[in-house]
C-alpha cells in the first residue's frame, strides 16, 4: 500500500518535471517554420510553458517538432532523427501538412507523418497561429502528466 503510494507520487513528480522541461528539436521544412519562430521567440515565447531550450541535436531533445511538408524523399531522414532521440520522447505534428499531408495529395508527399513515426499531439492549421500552437503544447503537457513514466531503474516489460 505504502509502496504503491510512493510509486504514484514519484510518477507524478517525474511527469511534472518532464512536462516543464521539454527540450525540443525543430524539424522545419516549410512555411510552418515561420509560425514556429514567432511562437518560440519573445513575443509569444513558449518558454513560458517550459519548452525552454531549442536543441539542434536529436540526442539531447525530448520533443520533436515537425513543421512543414514531409516528402517521401525526406521520410527516411525523419525516421532516423526520431530513432536517434533518447527516451522519453514526444512528437508534435505542427501544421496540416504533417497531420494529413494537407493540400499535397500527390506522388511526392507523405500523407501525415504518423505514417512514419508515432505522433503525440496534432496541431491543425495552415499554418497554425501561435495561440493554436500554445494550446496544443498545453494539451501535450497534460498528456505527459497523465502518462505512465518510464525511468532508468524501472524494469522494462
Amino acid at each position, binding site marked *: 500500500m505504502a509502496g504503491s503510494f510512493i510509486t504514484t507520487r514519484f510518477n507524478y513528480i517525474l511527469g511534472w518535471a518532464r512536462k516543464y522541461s521539454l527540450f525540443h528539436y525543430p524539424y522545419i521544412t516549410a512555411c510552418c517554420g515561420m509560425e514556429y519562430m514567432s511562437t518560440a521567440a519573445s513575443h509569444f515565447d513558449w518558454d513560458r510553458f517550459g519548452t525552454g531550450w531549442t536543441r539542434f541535436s536529436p540526442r539531447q531533445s525530448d520533443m520533436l517538432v515537425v513543421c512543414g511538408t514531409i516528402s*517521401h524523399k525526406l*521520410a*527516411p531522414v525523419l525516421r532516423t532523427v526520431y530513432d536517434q532521440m533518447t527516451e522519453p520522447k514526444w512528437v508534435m505534428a505542427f501544421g496540416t501538412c504533417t497531420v494529413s499531408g494537407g493540400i499535397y495529395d*500527390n*506522388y*511526392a508527399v507523405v500523407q501525415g507523418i*504518423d*505514417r*512514419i513515426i*508515432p505522433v503525440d499531439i496534432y496541431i491543425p492549421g495552415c499554418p497554425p497561429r501561435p495561440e493554436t500552437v500554445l494550446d496544443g503544447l498545453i494539451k501535450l503537457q497534460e498528456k505527459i502528466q497523465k502518462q505512465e513514466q518510464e525511468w532508468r531503474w524501472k524494469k522494462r516489460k
Partner: protein
Amino acid sequence: MEKKKIIEELKQKFSEKIKEISVQFGDEILLIERDSLLDVVQFLKDEPYSYSMLLDLTCVDYKGHELRFEMVYHLFSISNVQRLRIKVRLSEKDLQIDSLTSLWKNANWLEREVYDMFGVSFKGHPDLRRIFMYDGFEGYPLRKDFPLRKRQPRIPLRK
C-alpha cells in the same frame, strides 16, 4: 536590336528549319525542328542578338497528339532587354534532344528536372540522372498518364 530584324535574319538563315513563328504577350515564339536546336540557339546567343541568358527550360505533355512532348526554351537578351521562346516538338517513341549544357551551365539542372519529370533524354548531358525524385522511383510524375494515386514510399509506412 530590333526584334523584327532578328526574326527576318532568322528566317533567312534557317528558313526550312523554322516551322512556325507566332507572337504571344509581345514575345516571339519559334517552333523549330529538333535537329536544328543547337544551331539556332548558338546563333541567337552570339552577337549581335546576344540572347545570352537561358531563363528557363521546360516541357509540356500534350497527350493524344502525334508529337506528344513539347520542349520550351525561354531566352533573354540582357543588352537588348528582349525575350524569345523556342519550342521543339518531340514524339514519344524518339524522346531525345540535344543538351544545351555546352552553352549554358544552368541547363544542367533544368534538363535533369525535365528528365526526372517527363523522361526526355538529353544527348551530350554530362550527368543525366534524377534531381527531385529518389533513386528507384518508377515513372515520370508530370506525364499526363502517370497514375494519380500511385505512391512509392522509400521506407515501409506504419499502419
